[in-house]
């Protein structure tokens, strides 16, 4: 993800608006660096963090085998036994993303896949417009 953002900063030298829509399941440090680079180049950066409901709520029970989509690992477990640890790890991750965006002065919005994207964008843009008017 960091490489992609760096390439985008180099590809678009003029100031503009960069909208990043992703699940952000990537290496956090390079992501934050990429976002900072975009900001240093004068881009207005908006991060739309898309996550599935299951990923946010982890509602599974019963013996389950989780097979990694982006990693080669798999895990057979009782998901209810791991849920508490999972949610803690997820919160830590989301906090880190939020903090990184804030430090980089990037707008950040976490959007559930269950929520309609247009409505989520409209809400976000409306909020953002309101903030500028107040400024």
């Amino acid at each position, binding site marked *: 993800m960091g490489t992609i953002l760096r390439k985008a900063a180099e590809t678009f030298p003029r100031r503009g608006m960069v909208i990043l829509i992703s699940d952000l*399941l990537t290496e956090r440090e390079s992501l934050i660096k990429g976002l900072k680079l975009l900001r240093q180049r004068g881009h207005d950066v908006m991060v739309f963090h898309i996550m599935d409901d299951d990923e946010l*709520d982890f509602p599974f029970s019963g*013996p389950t085998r989780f097979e*990694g989509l982006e990693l080669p690992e798999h895990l057979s477990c*009782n998901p209810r036994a791991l849920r508490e640890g999972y949610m803690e790890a997820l919160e830590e991750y989301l906090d880190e993303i939020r903090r990184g965006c804030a430090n980089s002065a990037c707008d950040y919005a976490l959007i559930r896949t269950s929520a309609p994207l247009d409505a989520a964008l409209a809400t976000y843009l409306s909020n953002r417009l309101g903030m500028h008017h107040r400024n």
Partner: protein
Amino acid sequence: MSFIQSALTSWWIVVPLLSAPVIIHLINLLRHKKVKWAAMEFLLASQKRNRNYIRFKQLLLLLARMAALALILLLLAGLVLPDQWSKMFGGSKVHHVVLLDDSYSTQDRHDDGTVFDRGVEVVRNIVGQAAAQPTEQAFSLVRFSEAARRESDVQNNAISNPVDDAPEPTQPVDAVADDNQTSDTDASPAGGAPETETFRRRRVNDALLVELENSTKSFEPTNLPADPLEALKSIGHDLALGEDEKTVVYLVSDFRRNQWSNPDVLAQELARIRELGAEIHFVSTVDNRQANLAVTDLRPVPGVHAAGVPLEVEVEVTNFSSEPIRDLNLQLASQTNAADSRGEPQSYSLPAVAFDAIAPGQSLRKTFRVTFQTAGDHQVVARLDADALEVDNERYAVVRVLPEAPVLIVDGLVDSYAGKLLALALSPAQRVRTGLSPRIEAPSFLRENPLAGFQTIFLLNIRSLSDDEVRALNSYVAEGGGVVYFAGEDTSADFVNKQLYADGQGFFPAPLRAPVYLDTSSQAGPDLQVDLTHPIFAKTFGGSRNSFLNLVLIDRYFSVPAGWKAADDDNTQVIATVRGGAPLMIERKFGQGRAIAVLTTASPDWNNWGRGNPTFVITMLELQSYLSAGRSFDGQLAVGSPLRIDFAREMYDPRVAFTAPGRGAVRRTIEEKAIDSETESRLREARFTGTGRPGVYEALLTRIDGEEDVRRFAVNVATAEGDLEISSPSDLASSIDGVDFEYHRSAEFAGPSESQAGFNVSEDWRFFILLILLLIGEQLLAYSASFHPPLKGGSR
């Protein structure tokens, strides 16, 4: 350590059961659903963080489940802990209580011996097996008869010895035969319960085994019809149970159906024993019912029992089997004893009584005639051929034959024709011997002499009697005597109504109004109409038309008040009427006796009955015979019943020698000292309790002048015990529904197993509490280990 249900502890049950939680856990791991997952990073982080904790909880859960299953298995299998372990739980000693049926149905003989022998063998097995157990064992033996005797003693002491006037102890003083030949059963007090050494809470060891082996050699069944109730009652009362011991009760019996005739009471006792914490085992000593015939009754028909006069004896045979019996011959014999002598009796055979057929479960009665030429107590024995149960094949009766039977005729007129006519009717002539000895006396005789010796009293021409005379008559009837009152010219209705009837308080059957002439114009038919179903008329006149009765003409009779009717209490009945239905002969039961009022004259003054009509003599003889039944000597006792005699204290020595039948011809004499009668001050009472064997018993009284009187009594077995029908295990279970017991057949019962000899954890509620706690813990662990769905919905 052992198990009651050891089959449940086989490896092919234990291993699969205990490994089930692990196998289910592994199967669940294989049966997981697959989910494609992007956020593996967080899952792996969580797993890395909690791996050890999760595995620990899963291991604990598996162990809890295996432990719960193991405990359920141990409880179902009935784990019995050995002594050293069971002490931790408060139980160590085992008390084996054997209740042994020794009622006379256990004399039932099979190929391998009697049913009682089988029961004794079961007792030996129980003690033998108990001795082989590693834990401390105790043993108690209660025989049915022993418990019944104890209960009977308690009741008798409560009734007869309320204070300190107990009789002196029994002392055998004069054994007329070799005592060594008699068994304990013969000499036992209170009827057949043997004086064997009792075993109460004895520690089971080798010494006890030897002692029991020796004692049981002399064990014999009794002749009593004892049931298990008293033996069951003794548990927890006479036989206290310890709190720190396990009690196993064995009911070793033939389980005859008649012993369980009152199952509710038995079930109550068994339930009580279960509540005391005892385990109950029924050990049946008989598998199949054998046929049995029994002589169930033998007694002289009430009437005149005088020397040289034929008397009737009634006998009953019962077929206690499932098949009809045909062409049966009952052997009869009699023994004659002189009235005042202990000399050797003379035996006579009597013609056998034939029974064509007796249906299963039915009884058949027959009467036969026998004449005893001498006065005295005579024995009659009825005997059947040998069968499975011998003791009820014989039955005894004692017939007290008098030289003559005295009858009192109280005549208000001196030397009246009526008195002579009646005396002639009762004792017609020397050649026609009735055995009766009529004696004509004036009314004053009633108050001046004892009346008890007279068979019957006839009252003629009585105008009035003094209060003492009326009182004597009332007492005589109330104590079993019979009175006949003839009306006549001298009869005063006022006297009869006030003194003899006394508003129903006296013996006289009905109030009188006045003498009337019979109206012969209004209705056709004979003047005298008798109730042909009544015993006085049934035997001679019943079932046939007797023209001589029709020839009786009644001219006058005493009427009863208009509207008078016999009471509905069955004590008063009209047994003969005149033409038109007015009462002529009225009977009343009064106390133990009866009175009959004949409302016309005995002499042919108001009728022509006594003038050459043969039915008059027959009716007077039958009347006398019927009324004397209340004073007939019975002399019948059941085995085990105490034999009581009373006698005038001024006439006899207080020592009474009782002679009891023994084995074979052996007889045994025991002396008892009489005590003052509680009911009558002039009498003494002697009591003999050793009536354990059926036969004829003698009581020898010595008069003050040195002469001896012998009184004889027949003692017979109770009849119901001869029914050998057995209760099946299902019958027993349904009759005592709700009481847990185990049923065994004696042939297959080897005694207590090791599993019954220790501390059975399945009988201790604490282990069930432990199981419940274990299951609750398992559920909490399972929830904690997230094996249960979340309390709120939303899981996938």
